[in-house]
């Protein structure tokens, strides 16, 4: 017989909760967002076999790390809403509280809160190796007796104690009737009144309902009843909360003196303190931090180039195979140029995402991440950002897609949102083909005082992106209203050796999220763009086809290839993308762009580098020769129809580069922002503000330089 059971993992951050989760579920896990908020929800499944032949199928939810169940922000409501929700038809049968046993106090704080809410809980004393190393001894039996809940010692890193935990899960965890704290003593006669008038029987739940407006999602009627009650019985909720918290810690201290023995004088000169002397040193700290950032940048910029080239090669081959094996027609074209191109555009990001999250997980698991934000907090705070924003911003110089995903490490909602919104302004690697092409067109290749002019312009563009990102962040800091206060009260965990398993799981997890959540949108946009650029008004299209058919009848092989290229160019011009490009010409004229660039603006919404490909099609260069020099020569000869002078002047070139520097020309970024902010509101705002910025700056530049 298979019995299904739901459980939940809860615990402080850095308590080894995810290690236990990975150990229990293996790769049988999936990540989504909790409904309504963009906080990661991890669930997994594992089985336990009982001696009587039954097996238990357990679905485990890994709740976000928390120090308390007192929700102070919408995000912090999650553990509570999963564990204690009247509307949840299937609440977890049992909760496992993973505690860092070497630092029991804060874990017991959370644990006793759960006990008081009358939620069945098992206390798992994790990291027992650290306890031994510190010379602490914990009397688990005594703790179990005093708390009245099952307590087990374990070390998830070494897979110790996990079997015992599974054994406990086979039977039902009994609910403790008596709470840990005597809440009547804290709140006085108020609770009896509440019990009578509001029907809240359990005193602790009554207390929480009264003092904590976020405690349980109440219906409007219930809320107004409570409000009425509060008006008649005015209380200071804040001081009652404080009173409860202090009383709880007092009781925990008493409990700890009973159950835990510590060495008298803990050696202060421990490893973590010594390492901190170096890693948050005013000089070496930054040297190390920027060294790591540089390595991350190198990794996603150049190491990932090899696997990316490999993916590109594979997709190219498969495309060719389909091309050869399928009859010419719309279906083949859709598969090769629509779907395959879209898929190729998605898998190309896998190496960058995996590498970035390898580094991020390593930084978090070793405990270094909090040191990095400690060093950068003061500098970044001025711009409404967080110390942890440095990693997304820096990674954004390689690619905004993994960078935006990495903004998850920022707990504060507003700071995270601002980071997401400004990261795409940092010049990413997809802008390089556009920059190189245009620089080679309008910037002379000469040196001034030994500095190569073209290189200088490229560097200035990068610098400009960085300044624009910080400037926009600073502005948004005023514009976006924060629902929660930004605070920096955070634990600096001790340094630990990272777990390869956790690192690999995090990489797989992030790649999966990107492929399945952002991938859908990327494929859809990719197909839309394909339709726009391959289809147009039928009459015109037939005309073009007929024209070239008659011409190619008399052509030799070389000529017919030339004709094909020209046909492609004419068809693109006649396509819907072409029509859009032409119709936006009046709009983009102030920036110095003509309709040909208009078409490229439309198609390169897929990705910035598509600009180069579209330009080569428009100038009928042919797919086999997409080299920049070929397109450059064609573009150099392009004349402005009105003035007869070269179209690509310095003014227009710089205007075009600035447009690509600021505009959100990347559907993958849009897709990721959609996934990370949980809706279309922010990606749309982002597209608008970035396009607006690009438009304004390009127009201004062109008009001034013209």
């Amino acid at each position: 017989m298979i019995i299904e059971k739901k459980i939940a993992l809860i615990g402080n951050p850095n308590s080894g909760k995810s290690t236990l989760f990975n150990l229990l579920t293996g790769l049988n896990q999936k990540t989504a967002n909790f409904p309504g908020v963009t906080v990661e929800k991890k669930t997994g499944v594992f089985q336990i076999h009982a001696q009587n032949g039954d097996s238990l199928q357990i679905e485990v939810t890994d709740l976000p790390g928390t120090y308390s169940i007192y929700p102070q922000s919408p995000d912090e409501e999650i553990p509570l809403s999963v564990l204690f929700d009247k509307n949840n038809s299937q609440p977890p049968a049992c909760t496992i509280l993973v505690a860092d046993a070497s630092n029991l106090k804060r874990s017991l704080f959370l644990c006793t809160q759960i006990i008081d809410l009358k939620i069945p809980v098992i206390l798992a004393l994790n990291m027992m190796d650290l306890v031994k190393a510190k010379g602490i001894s914990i009397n688990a039996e005594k703790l179990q007796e005093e708390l009245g809940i099952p307590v087990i010692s374990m070390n998830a890193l070494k897979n110790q104690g996990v079997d015992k935990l599974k054994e406990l899960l086979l039977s039902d965890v009994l609910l403790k009737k008596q709470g840990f704290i005597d809440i009547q003593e804290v709140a006085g006669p108020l609770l009896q009144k509440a019990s009578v008038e509001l029907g809240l029987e359990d005193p602790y739940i009554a207390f929480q309902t009264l003092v904590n407006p976020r405690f349980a999602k109440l219906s409007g009627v219930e809320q107004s009843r409570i409000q009425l009650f509060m008006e008649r019985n005015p209380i200071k909720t804040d001081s009652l909360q404080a009173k409860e918290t202090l009383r709880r810690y007092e009781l925990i201290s008493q409990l700890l003196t009973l159950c835990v023995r510590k060495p008298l004088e803990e050696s202060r000169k421990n490893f973590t303190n010594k390492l901190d002397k170096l890693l948050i040193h005013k000089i070496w700290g930054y040297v190390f931090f920027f060294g790591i950032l540089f390595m991350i940048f190198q990794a996603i910029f150049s190491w990932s180039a090899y696997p990316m080239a490999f993916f590109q090669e594979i997709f190219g081959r498969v495309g060719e195979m389909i091309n050869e094996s399928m009859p010419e027609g719309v279906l083949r074209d859709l598969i090769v140029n629509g779907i395959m191109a879209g898929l190729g555009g998605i898998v190309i990001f896998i190496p960058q995402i995996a590498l970035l999250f390898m580094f991020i997980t390593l930084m978090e698991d070793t405990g270094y991440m909090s040191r990095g934000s400690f060093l950068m907090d003061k500098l970044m705070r001025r711009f409404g950002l967080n110390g942890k924003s440095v990693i997304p911003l820096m990674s954004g110089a390689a690619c905004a897609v993994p960078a935006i995903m990495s903004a998850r490490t920022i707990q504060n909602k507003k700071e995270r949102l601002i980071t997401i919104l400004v990261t795409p302004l940092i010049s990413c690697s997809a802008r390089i083909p556009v920059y190189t092409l245009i620089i080679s067109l309008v910037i002379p290749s000469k040196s001034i005082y030994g500095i190569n002019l073209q290189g200088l312009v490229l560097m200035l563009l990068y610098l400009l992106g960085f300044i624009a990102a910080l400037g926009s962040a600073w502005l948004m800091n005023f514009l976006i209203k924060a629902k929660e206060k930004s605070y920096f009260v955070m634990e600096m965990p001790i340094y630990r050796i990272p777990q390869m398993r956790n690192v690999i799981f995090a990489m797989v997890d992030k790649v999966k999220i990107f492929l399945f959540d952002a991938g859908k949108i990327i494929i859809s946009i990719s197909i839309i763009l394909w339709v726009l650029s391959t289809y147009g008004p039928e009459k015109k299209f037939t005309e073009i086809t007929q024209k070239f058919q008659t011409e190619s009848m008399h052509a030799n092989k070389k000529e017919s290839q030339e004709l094909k290229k020209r046909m492609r160019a004419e068809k693109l011009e006649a396509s819907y993308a072409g029509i859009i490009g032409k119709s936006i010409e009046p709009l983009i004229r102030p920036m110095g762009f003509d309709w040909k660039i208009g078409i490229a603006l439309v198609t390169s919404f897929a990705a910035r580098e598509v600009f180069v490909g579209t330009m080569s099609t428009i100038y009928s260069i042919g797919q086999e020769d997409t080299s920049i020099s070929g397109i450059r020569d064609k573009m150099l000869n392009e004349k402005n129809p009105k003035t007869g002078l070269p179209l690509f002047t310095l003014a227009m070139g710089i205007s075009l580069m600035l447009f690509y520097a600021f505009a959100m020309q990347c559907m993958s970024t849009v897709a990721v922002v959609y996934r990370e902010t949980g809706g279309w509101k922010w990606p749309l705002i982002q597209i608008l503000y970035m396009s607006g910025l690009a438009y304004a700056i390009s127009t201004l530049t062109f008009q001034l330089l013209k």
Partner: protein
Amino acid sequence: MSLFITILNKKFEFQSHHIHSMNLSELKKGEKAIILSIDESPIRIKLFEMGCIPGEHITLENIAPFGDPIAISVSDYKLSLRLNEAFYIQIQKVSTEQEPQAA
């Protein structure tokens, strides 16, 4: 009125002299203290929950290069916080070996 202020000032001086009351943002690196109280503020409960409770011994362990944030050790772990948060934490300095206690 002025007499009242003088008395008030005297009283305040006396108090601050007597128990060395100061807030955490004034503590120097390496110095030890005991938490006396935490002022009413939006992060008061948060600080309590993180183990910053009256009576707890703390040591100022690190100061970030630009003077802010700071890291203290409290109830067996290291906690970082900004100066504007440390400001709410009222402490009493505990003499260290290097610095003999003032009378």
